[in-house]
């Protein structure tokens, strides 16, 4: 059977040698190489679960009166058709709530998997020549996932996401020159308008997923061509890559990872409530829920807005608003820095060689310290995004907490940089010392409780 299939395929595509090489392809065994795969499986899951949701969701801002039975407190309320359809698919559609919550959880896990995957790539120097292309594609994928997450949780027309949409449109409007057009194009007019949900729906289920699919294909094709990097070790060289063969060893492991990812997401979808829009209520533009926090991958932007400077500039009949600095300029600079890092690092530490062996993180203090500082900065913004909740829990005034964050975002990242640099240097020194001073004896505990010295076994 299999032989006949391979023959059929080879006679038509001539693919037998390719298949043979592909099945023998080496996949490094380190666990951190699976983070990107988690992201890939999240993409599959989010497309599948999202397709299911499109069968039941109405992307419409038409006003309807709720007459469902699931949420008695909302009976008779006027709401958007979108919100009513979300209530229906959550409570009157079989497995609807599980799939909707698993879909939302998947967006959070997807973004987290990309960020951890990129951290692995960054701190081990895997982005260096020849892999700059995939660094750029990967960061673009993160941007798209953040965008798709935001447009996704803005669809249900609930009080929480409605305010988020208004903020996003206000940020778009703040962008100099093109802001007005961008805002009205993306949201179908002012927010709220009768077109907003429909416009976001097209972006959420068509435009961004198509880009994601195409870029993921390109990401994998480049990876396949360039082959994997690997950590240094015995028999690991710049011109080879050692690992498990794709078939059968790695395939079984990777399929297990896929099933585990899907299983975990469905378990979360069934057991852990996320975005309970029926508690927030439908969006009336003059109401808002408090406290109001977005998903984590948008939370750092919200934190940036909370700390932002009260600085508006007038430029020839136009305004560069306070919102622009914190909502567009700062995140733009952070992403520009990450996009450009492979070239920045090569400028700071001239190096034209290709790298197939990874650095351990402490091998390059400048890179590691910079990464730690940037992560610290973004993490502080993320925490600042819930300063009102922290104020409520600690009984410290939100003004004081905000000021603490305003100071911390400028003070702590340099401190984190210095600390990481120092730790890297210490680890370098320790490893250099150990290489210069190999141990001469090994201490062995005896049965009586004492210690004996034995010579170091020859490897």
């Amino acid at each position, binding site marked *: 059977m299999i032989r006949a299939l391979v023959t059929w395929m080879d006679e038509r595509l001539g693919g037998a040698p390719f298949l043979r090489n592909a099945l023998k392809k080496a996949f490094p065994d380190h666990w951190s190489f699976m983070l990107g795969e988690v992201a890939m499986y999240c993409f599959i899951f989010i497309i599948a679960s999202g397709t299911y949701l499109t069968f039941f969701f109405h992307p419409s801002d038409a006003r309807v009166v709720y007459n469902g039975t699931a949420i008695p407190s909302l009976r008779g309320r006027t709401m958007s058709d979108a919100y009513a359809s979300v209530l229906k698919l959550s409570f009157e559609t079989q497995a609807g709530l599980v799939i909707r919550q698993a879909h939302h959880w998947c967006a959070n896990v997807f973004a987290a998997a990309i960020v951890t995957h990129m951290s692995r790539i960054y701190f081990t120097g895997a982005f260096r020549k020849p892999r700059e292309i995939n660094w750029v594609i990967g960061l673009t994928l993160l941007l798209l996932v953040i965008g798709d997450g935001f447009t996704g949780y803005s669809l249900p027309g609930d009080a929480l996401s409605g305010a988020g949409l208004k*903020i996003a449109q206000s940020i778009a409007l703040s962008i100099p020159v093109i802001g007005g057009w961008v805002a009205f*194009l993306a949201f179908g007019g002012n927010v709220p308008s009768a077109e907003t949900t429909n416009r976001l729906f097209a972006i959420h289920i068509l435009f961004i997923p198509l880009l994601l699919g195409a870029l993921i294909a390109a990401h994998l094709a480049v990876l396949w061509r360039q082959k994997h990097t690997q950590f240094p070790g015995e028999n690991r060289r710049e011109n080879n890559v050692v690992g498990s063969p794709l078939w059968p060893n790695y395939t*079984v*492991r990777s399929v297990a990872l896929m099933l585990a990812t899907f299983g975990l997401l469905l378990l979360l979808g069934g057991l852990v409530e996320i975005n309970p829009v029926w508690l927030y209520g439908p969006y009336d533009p003059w109401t808002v*829920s408090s406290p109001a926090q977005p998903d984590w991958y948008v939370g750092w932007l919200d934190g940036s807005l909370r700390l932002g400077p009260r600085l508006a500039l007038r430029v020839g009949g136009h305004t560069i608003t306070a919102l622009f600095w914190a909502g567009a300029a700062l995140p733009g600079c952070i992403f520009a820095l990450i996009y450009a890092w492979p070239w920045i690092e090569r400028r700071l530490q001239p190096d034209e060689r290709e790298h197939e062996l990874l650095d351990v993180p402490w091998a390059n203090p400048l890179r590691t310290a910079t990464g730690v500082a940037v992560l610290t900065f973004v993490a502080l913004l993320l925490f600042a995004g819930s300063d009102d909740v922290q104020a409520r829990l600690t009984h410290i005034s939100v003004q004081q907490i905000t000021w603490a964050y305003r100071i911390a975002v400028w003070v702590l990242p340099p401190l984190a940089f210095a600390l990481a640099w120092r730790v890297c240097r210490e680890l370098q020194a320790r490893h250099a010392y150990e290489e210069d001073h190999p141990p001469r004896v090994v201490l062995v505990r005896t049965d009586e409780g004492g210690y004996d010295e034995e010579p170091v076994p020859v490897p």
Partner: protein
Amino acid sequence: MSSPRERRGERWAAAWLTTSVACSVAFATSFALGGQPQVEGIGLGGALLALAAALIVWSRALIPPRQVEDEHLPLAHPAVQRAAAAGLLIEGGAEIVGRRAWLVRFACAAAGVLGVAALFPLRGLGPNPNGRLGETSWKRGLRFVREDGSFVDASALEVGSVVTVFPEGAVGPDKVVDMANDAVMLVRVQEDALRMPPDRASWTPRGFVAYSKICTHAGCPVALYREGPQQLMCPCHQSTFDVTDGGTVVFGPAARALPQLPVALDADGVLRAGGAMSGFIGPESWEHA
């Protein structure tokens, strides 16, 4: 003959497969009986996780570990090959251009014109924002109504009370988009607590003060009233505005005071707008001077 390790692996894998089957059956049964989110999640998720566990046992205990080595051949080719590829590109390009540089320029210009023409449909995808941002329906003389259309009675509002009001004739389920811009926070404070600028002295009869409810920072509703310090606070980013002195910013990222709506009080206690909004409502944008 299988080793004890393999036999143990087989038993574990079989146990996980059994778990998976049990979870699948639980899911199908729950679904058939009408469905229950927690059972569905545990059933479906558990079936997949148990299958994953079986495969992990399988790969660790039953498949012989194997290491293979791939070669990293240099990606770059000899200079000759690169030159040949680049040469083809250049020669072909030269054949297109030939001695017809003017025609090339013409073609580029034509494509440019097409690009400009394409901007028109792109523009049509959204209405023109110019000049229409931040306008409201408020006009002098319009009475204050609540969300449900009922009039606001001044005598029913004690000091410290807050109510969201709209202009009469502009509320209802089909007017939500307008209501989003028109929403106003009407607050009653102690008259002697007011420190209004002189030109606004007549805007606050008997301590009734009204401000746009749309935050000047990012457009969220400024929904929280803190009675002690007499401040309006936006729950989104904590911009805080002083109710007593014309809505100036006392904390947070907003850079502009809340627009104020002059309040007029008839002899019979009816509250009206004493004029238009003091400025455009909502966040500033590039479009604003």
